[in-house]
């Protein structure tokens, strides 16, 4: 698979021969993929193709049955999400995992709140860092103090991505980031996702919208029934080919 390796720089994420079984059922087999810094790789496939399982493997929720995960060329074993986070991998979940009645800045630091020398919450720092980041990413929220439930769907998605960006040093996994959004909000979120490239973070995105995949990604990886059908450079393929790979009209 030549499109599978751009060997100019060290991949942030390198999956080699990943296989995952649940009991007797094989969810993923022979899966290999590199994600490079500043690169957006899209994971596409029909429902049940194994996309979510793969995200869970990379985020540490389900350790693979066999195969290896390397971050910056170093093989790592991750048995829970906390270990993945410590490695610089952040996930933006489909349900966003935001605490709706808390402020934007408390959500940005959920579970990782900084404290001052008296052991009390360092709100000033949380607010300052939140304001800086939402400004950089151009997430249009009224204030760092705003409560999540008062935000629109697009603003919430923006907050979730901003949080991942704040903590991810290597890789962000995006699970259907615009599934619940309208046209204008989708465009805004896509803009934010594209801006992540300049931060030298790898992005692995799951999306059902092929239009979106072609707008955002550098490469497209197709899964069908747990098998990796192929990886294509987005610039060198077209929708027909990808659809054919997803539906099984074209093997390899």
């Amino acid at each position: 698979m030549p499109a599978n390796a751009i060997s100019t720089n060290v991949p942030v994420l390198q999956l080699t021969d990943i296989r995952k079984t649940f009991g007797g059922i094989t969810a993923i087999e022979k899966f290999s993929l590199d994600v490079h810094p500043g690169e957006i790789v899209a994971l596409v496939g029909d429902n049940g193709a194994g996309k979510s399982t793969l995200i869970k493997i990379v985020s540490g929720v389900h350790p693979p049955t066999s195969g290896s995960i390397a971050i910056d060329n170093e093989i790592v074993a991750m048995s829970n999400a906390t270990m993945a986070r410590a490695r610089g991998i952040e996930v933006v979940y489909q349900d966003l995992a935001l605490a709706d009645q808390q402020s934007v800045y408390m959500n940005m630091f959920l579970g990782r709140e900084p404290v001052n020398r008296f052991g009390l919450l360092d709100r000033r720092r949380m607010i300052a860092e939140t304001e800086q980041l939402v400004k950089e990413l151009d997430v249009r929220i009224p204030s760092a103090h705003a409560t999540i439930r008062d935000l629109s769907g697009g603003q919430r998605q923006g907050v979730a991505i901003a949080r991942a960006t704040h903590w991810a040093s290597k890789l962000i996994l995006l699970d259907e980031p615009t599934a619940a959004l309208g046209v204008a909000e989708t465009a805004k979120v896509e803009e934010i996702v594209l801006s992540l490239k300049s931060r030298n973070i790898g992005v692995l995105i799951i999306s059902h919208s092929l239009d979106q995949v072609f707008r955002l990604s550098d490469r497209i990886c197709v899964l069908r029934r747990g098998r990796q059908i192929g990886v294509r450079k987005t610039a060198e393929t077209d929708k027909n080919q990808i659809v054919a790979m997803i539906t099984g009209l074209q093997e390899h």
Partner: protein
Amino acid sequence: MPIANAGAADRTGGFASRFNLQQYVVYLGFLAIFLFFAVVLRDSGFLTVRNLSNIVLQTAPATIMAIGLVFVMAAGEIDLSIGSIVAVAALAAAVTINAYGLAPGVLAGLGAGLLIGFVNGALVAYVKLPSFLVTLATMGLFAGVSRSMTNLRSIPVTDSTFTGFFGSGSLLGVPSLIWWTVIAVAVGHLVFRESRFGAHVLATGDNARAAAVSGISVPRIRLAVLTISGGLAGLAGLLYAGRLQAAKYTLGETDLMTVIAAVIVGGTLLNGGKGSIVGALVGSLMMGMLNNGLILMGLSVSDQMIVRGLIILAAVAVSLREKNR
């Protein structure tokens, strides 16, 4: 503080949407009830310093319990066993003081509360039983324990250090029950509002899944809040025993409804994610004032219960309306 052009999607800007009724309802309610009694009971001694300070003193145990319940409810759980813990802790303290002296007695009282709270918490956090059912069961269980412990008798507490420290004494001219209230509210507020633990309690009650994927140990939070609630109910038991100079199985029996009402009126959401210690204090004082005023108005015990029940109903209605906004 505009960070970015908020645009049309800004739904938090206007005063009308920012004004949160639930946040202020406790203060408005407190004021309204106070003014009502001040006018209606102006000749019945409601406004005397003696009566008003009595209200604060009598409210102290309920306020302390309410602080614990704010943590529990903010975490999305409930503790129905606090009333029973009060009696068990007071009796444990009384029996132990009479047999072994002051310090063991205090430890026995607080320890009993912490232990029951810990058992509640462990069953909720690790056996994954709903807190409503667990604490409903322990409420009944320990109501039985305090009755069988004493054959329904009252145990006198004569240790004057104990009754002074936890009851009728004073320091710098301020009654000890007020000291306890002030310290508990101050510490509770600081921990709830300004510590990481408090933030994790709120996150757990708000969205347990989000808290868990953010690295917060949700079971540990659930264990902690129920243990805190048990410990504070134990302290409330000591305060009752100190003030009344005796312990009996009836202590705390009728407090559960009052305390839940105080906490909800005070701005803590029944379903978690939001709470206020100061609100619970004001809510508790409001319930105490209501009790006092209704008695001075000459209402029968049954009528008092009806009025209190109606107030709780109104408070829950406001609470849920805000949550589902």
